[in-house]
């Protein structure tokens, strides 16, 4: 058939054309001085006061600066936009001396008035720009009563009650709201979330939905010029796509490499692999209000039943370490180094279970999520835990839900629904997690754990301005909670990243934000 030979020839020609077409390698496309970042999600807001996700805060940390900042390698605070600070004797008023000569990206001056504007906007309901919210995480900065300008470069923030976590929160990502440009808020109103404006090392340039988010270096940054000319964030939600973009040279750096792909990168000289533990905890919340976990012995049995070492090495491939208690080791001053994790001891678990009146084991419902911020590999973890629990006599029936549905089921309380739920939490101060999830009657204490001694320690630490004394209180708290075992403590995640070998001067920070002001690219 004459007619179709042509088609075959055409097909061959087409294939050749496609080959020629791609002759230029996809790699080496990123210009010298600009860093292309494979980012886990689309940016949601350019307003640090509105941001709620770690992926947003990772970007915003390069645009906004707080009054204080974290030191380069730890969660200890040091001066940022404020040069120094004092605390009043009643521990309620913080007075900040501000740095002079700091400019916003739009050219305006940073001073006490701008700080007052920023705090009033998010804490005073009658502020003319209060409607540019909501500001869901601002409560973590503390119960702010008022903000006063004492002189052009001195500002006082008064709290309704003492709140010692304030300094670490001010240094954290949400604290970046102190360095927002009020002129930009006034200019854009609700659209400030799409435009932004701060004092930081990079400034917002371009935002193309689903494609890229571009920041240019801020040439007038008060700490000096950064080495890079700019940053390009590519939102690549699918983790396999993130890996293939990195392998093909479409990105210079990728945050959150899936555990299964780490070996691919560490084996090659073309890539640099980074790891950093941070204030993260992966745990099982137990329903302390209902049978069987209303009995401490059964809760301890669950802690003994699970082989945490195996979870961390086999499923998480070393991307996490075994957790001993509620306070992650990243809080060096508050973590109790003497507290040891529950050992893996199925025999002891069985014995405790029998002692509590369940010699033939017990049936429970176990909520597992499909995905979710900080949840690592929740389904694999869930099934491995199910097997460990079953071996000790706790027969868990897994119910799996999509993340938001999952939260909707757990947050109002687990009673009547489930006895076990997997959860994780990232925080910037050791106060927040126990305060929100373990204190009696706390909003996310869905397991209904209650121990007045623990409540008293949390409250005392909250009001204690001396960091050493505060740390000592948290250590007592950890020991009490570990013994009560309202949760099964599983793992502390290590954030990871991979970059091409050309990227220099980058390191991950324990706060889980990614900071690019010391980074360069050959």
């Amino acid at each position: 058939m004459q007619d179709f030979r042509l088609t075959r020839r055409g097909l061959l020609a087409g294939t050749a054309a496609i080959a020629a077409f791609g002759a230029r390698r996809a790699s080496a496309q990123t210009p010298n001085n600009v860093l292309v970042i494979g980012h886990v999600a689309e940016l949601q807001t350019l307003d640090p006061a509105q941001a709620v996700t770690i992926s947003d805060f990772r970007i915003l940390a390069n645009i906004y600066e707080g009054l204080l900042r974290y030191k380069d390698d730890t969660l200890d605070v040091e001066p940022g936009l404020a040069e120094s600070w004092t605390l009043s004797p009643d521990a309620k008023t913080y007075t900040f001396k501000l740095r002079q000569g700091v400019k916003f990206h739009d050219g305006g001056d940073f001073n006490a008035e701008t700080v007052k504007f920023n705090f009033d906007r998010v804490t005073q309901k009658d502020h003319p720009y209060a409607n540019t919210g909501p500001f869901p995480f601002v409560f973590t900065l503390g119960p702010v009563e008022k903000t006063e300008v004492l002189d052009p470069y001195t500002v006082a923030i008064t709290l309704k009650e003492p709140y010692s976590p304030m300094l670490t929160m001010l240094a954290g990502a949400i604290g970046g709201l102190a360095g927002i440009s009020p002129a930009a808020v006034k200019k854009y109103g609700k659209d400030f979330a799409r435009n932004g404006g701060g004092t930081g090392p990079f400034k917002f340039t371009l935002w193309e939905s689903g494609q890229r988010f571009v920041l240019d270096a801020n040439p007038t940054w008060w700490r000096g010029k950064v080495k890079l000319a700019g940053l390009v964030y590519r939102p690549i939600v699918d983790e396999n796509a993130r890996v293939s973009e990195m392998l093909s040279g479409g990105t210079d750096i990728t945050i959150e490499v899936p555990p299964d792909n780490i070996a691919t990168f560490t084996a090659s000289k073309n890539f640099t692999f980074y790891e950093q533990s941070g204030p993260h905890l992966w745990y099982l919340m137990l329903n302390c209000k209902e049978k069987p976990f209303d009995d401490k012995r059964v809760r301890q049995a669950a802690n003994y039943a699970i082989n945490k070492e195996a979870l961390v090495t086999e499923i998480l491939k070393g991307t996490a370490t075994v957790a001993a208690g509620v306070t992650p080791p990243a809080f060096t001053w508050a973590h109790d180094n003497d507290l040891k994790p529950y050992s893996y001891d199925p025999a002891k678990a069985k014995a405790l279970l029998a002692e509590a009146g369940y010699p033939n084991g017990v049936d429970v419902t176990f909520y597992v999520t499909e995905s979710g911020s900080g949840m690592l590999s929740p389904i694999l973890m869930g099934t491995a835990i199910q097997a460990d629990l079953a071996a000790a006599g706790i027969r868990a029936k897994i119910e799996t839900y999509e993340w938001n549905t999952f939260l909707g089921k757990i947050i109002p309380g687990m009673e009547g629904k489930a006895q076990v739920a997997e959860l994780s939490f990232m925080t910037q101060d050791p106060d927040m997690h126990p305060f929100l999830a373990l204190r009696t009657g706390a909003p996310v204490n869905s397991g209904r754990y209650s121990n007045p001694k623990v409540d008293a320690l949390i409250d005392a630490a909250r009001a204690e301005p001396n960091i050493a004394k505060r740390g000592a209180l948290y250590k007592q708290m950890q020991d009490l909670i570990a013994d009560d075992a309202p949760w099964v403590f599983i793992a502390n995640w290590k954030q990871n990243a991979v970059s091409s070998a050309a990227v220099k001067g980058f390191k991950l920070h324990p706060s889980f934000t990614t900071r690019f002001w010391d980074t360069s690219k050959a």
Partner: protein
Amino acid sequence: MLNSYILRRLLLIAPVLFGVTIIVFLVISLVPGDPAKAILGTFATPEAVAQVRHDLGLDESLPAQYGIWLFNLLQGDFGRSYILHKPVIVEIMARLFPTLLLAGVALVLSSVFGILLGIVAAVRQNAWPDKVITVAVLIGISTPSFWLGILLIFWFGVRLAWLPVGGMQEMFGGGGVWDVTRHLVLPSCALAAVAGAVLVRLTRGAMLEVMRQDFVRTARAKGLPERRVIFVHAFRNALVGIIPVIGLEAGFVLGGAVYIETVFQWPGIGRMLVSAISTRDILLVQGGVLVIAFAYVLINLLADIAQSLLDPRIRAG
């Protein structure tokens, strides 16, 4: 005659879209998980949740929520995305072109190759081209397109590094026709494969049936060249059955775009919808689905019109 047919079909669009609004609205409303909590994160205070529910209008009854949405929609107001902090319509318009481009190219590729290969297979029935094509089609139909996408990325993007693995244009100095075309190759092929395979089967069957009929035998007997018999006499008649399926394939590629866009980071509506659903961005999901549904209805209308042009019996009926 033709005009009144088109008019009748056009008038039917309105009730179809109205039905779509109800279904879209109900489906999103029935999805568990409070949008306010999804927006505010795990540790939102009850006051903040109540405020956001009020801002979103979620404290109204369901019929009232639907009524308000529809009322605004009729005035061209799709609302404002609470997550993205911008008007829904702006985001949809930015995402619509990439999706239409990807789906359109995939549809053309699948139609052209599907029909051509189908004709080849029919004409060379039971000979080796037919067998090769039939096996290829079987593989094509049974391969999930997202998996094919990952394979294509692995071979052509990572191993051979011929083509970019994702995105619609280069991050730098990109954006021209050539650049976009290079980025289109892998996702459109992945998306076209299944749709094309279906068309091959359909075309082959339709052609075989038509070629057995008397008028084809008469055409051959008249001494017409084989090429003319196949393309003019047989194919034109087979096409009547193929065109409505192409219309249905349009729906398939638009739907398939949801995961292909995710695999290839294509900045289209599909990927937008995936993230909007997980963040419970209700207005964005409703708007996005509505626009996709509208595109689907429109394409099917065009297919029906094309079919009626080919086959006058349809207009009459």
